[in-house]
């Protein structure tokens, strides 16, 4: 299996699907000749032309709303936001139109829109280029929300998204774009709603999201030297959420902590905790813990920025504390 970066893996998936399906087209700012701010569409303009790599003016609400109309009439738009922060102007189009159209039409209309963009804290990007947003989108019925952490999953989920008739938010943590991983060539599909056990262990279940999967893996290495055995679950999609895999893991370990860069209130961790208490109460030997990014707009200065994100050290300590309970 070749080793690819996360971004190259998505590009491979995108290229394969665009080759297979002439109805797929991409809209966004700088995704044409320029190949995307994050190289999400590098080389595709020359291959597929201007109509399928449509460079838009700076009108996020406009092209997201257009994507709805296009998806309803037989094509499959991909909206490349660059930063997910930029589409807050189009939240109404996503929540009121795109998410609800299949339901309101009693299934007679399909809404195959892929909305992709970068999320996450890092590189002093400050508060308008750092949001996570997946808890928000996961709140609404009608949307699928992918938050891959590994290059192979990024390709596999992107390909699944491009064959799904549902609208999909595909959110890529910008600190993951250059991480490398083994990526299967050709047909490789990762289903929605299927978590991955990225590390097996006995003493505690860590559910980690996006970049926190990698930090939790590092923390687990440290803890292994202390004789602690950590199991790490990566949900990969938060809507749908694979609660069964989490429950099975908790059944084995008796302890659960959710590590998430996104804010805690009304977040994915709270939801997982409620589901595990409801369905796995008797398996729990300790309270469920959460470790989240600090509940604040994201600051710019490196020491401030570092302070709001769970670090490997803080993750390791939170796991130690939970095991000691």
């Amino acid at each position, binding site marked *: 299996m070749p080793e690819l970066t996360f971004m190259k893996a998505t590009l491979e998936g995108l290229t394969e699907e665009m080759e297979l399906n002439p109805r797929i087209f991409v809209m966004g700012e700088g995704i044409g000749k320029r190949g995307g701010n994050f190289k999400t569409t590098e080389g595709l303009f020359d291959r597929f032309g201007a109509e399928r790599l449509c460079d838009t003016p700076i009108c996020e*609400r406009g092209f997201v709303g257009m994507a709805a109309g296009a998806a309803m009439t037989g094509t499959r738009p991909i909206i490349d936001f660059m930063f997910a922060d930029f589409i807050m102007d189009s939240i109404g189009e996503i929540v009121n139109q795109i998410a609800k159209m299949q339901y309101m039409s009693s299934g007679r209309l399909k809404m195959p829109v892929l909305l992709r963009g970068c999320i996450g804290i890092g590189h002093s990007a400050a508060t308008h280029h750092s949001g996570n947003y997946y808890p928000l989108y996961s709140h609404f019925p009608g949307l699928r929300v992918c938050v891959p952490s590994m290059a192979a999953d990024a390709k596999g989920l992107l390909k699944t998204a491009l064959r799904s008739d549902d609208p999909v938010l595909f959110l890529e943590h910008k600190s993951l774009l250059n991480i490398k991983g083994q990526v299967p060539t050709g047909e490789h599909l990762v289903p929605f709603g299927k978590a991955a056990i990225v590390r097996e262990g006995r003493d505690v279940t860590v559910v980690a999201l996006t970049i926190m999967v990698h930090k939790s893996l590092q923390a687990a290495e440290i803890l292994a030297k202390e004789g602690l055995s950590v199991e790490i679950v990566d949900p990969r999609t938060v809507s749908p959420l694979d609660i069964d895999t989490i429950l099975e893991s908790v059944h084995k370990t008796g302890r659960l902590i959710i590590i998430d860069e996104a804010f805690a209130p009304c977040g994915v961790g709270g939801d997982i905790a409620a589901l595990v208490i409801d369905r796995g109460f008797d398996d729990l030997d300790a309270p469920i813990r959460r470790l989240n990014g600090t509940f604040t707009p994201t600051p710019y200065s490196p020491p401030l920025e570092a302070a709001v994100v769970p670090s490997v050290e803080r993750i390791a300590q939170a796991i130690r504390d939970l095991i000691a309970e």
Partner: protein
Amino acid sequence: MPETTPPYLRLYRTMQVIRQTEEQLAKSHQRGLIHGACHTYVGQEAIATGVCAHLRPSDVVFSTHRGHGHALAKGVTPAALIAELFGRATGCSSGRGGSMHLFSPEVGMMGTSGIVGPCILQAAGAGYSFKLLKSDNVGVAFFGDGAVNNGAFHEGLNMASIWKLPSLFICENNQFATEVPFKYAAGNPTVASRGAAYGMPGIEVDGNDVLAVYEAAKTAIQRAKAGEGPTLIECLTYRTRPHSEGMGDFGYRSREEVEAWKARCPIRRFAEKLVAESLATVDELAKIEAEVQAMVVEAQAFAENSPWPDPSTAATHVYAQ
């Protein structure tokens, strides 16, 4: 394209279907048969009729909260519309939508919306699909004067223009957004003149003259199909019933003004013209009126006797199946 005479009697029938269905709905609203809002299209019938007369089922319409007329003109039956407002399983949206969420993609009715604005973007998006798929369909947005001050108008018209999309933007300027006069809400008092800002034709027509609307739409569709891009058409009109059934109507406009516009009824005007110019006889028109009346009576009975939706289906179709 060869010059063809407009389908006079078909236009007349469609306007009658809209008017009589709306009047029936207004009565039903008073009887408590309609569970939510009910925005009627009375006074504006010529617009949906004149535009949709050109459209095939594969041409698509995206509409607004005031969308009964668009649905009917696009081919939704009065029975399916009335049943929808009654919340019945037989409604065009299976009772999921009511007045503001009318769907019938089978006939190209891609939905009305409770949110002002998105239909403009969706019609541009449909245009993009049709361009990519190399089909000769068109996407049409109907919206009110209120929508032109929303950002969707600016973004949608600009994109449709730069990519020369086969889209029509039909603004029904009935001079009020709920109770706010267009004169108050817009710095530029005409909508049609805004076409120039986006590099597309902006045409102003008498929205109470079905033939004027018909001709303007015909030209716009020819332009769209020729790959020359979108057209903005401002139809000047007036709604002669309150914004929504059950609302007061004279806090913001006068009875005299409403009466003056009722005198310009698009249906009566068209009938008079047809008879005066010997394009139809009084008897032909009366026959159409009676046929439509019978159809609406039947539709009302159908709707009243229709079953409620099965509550176990309340969460189906959230995702594709």
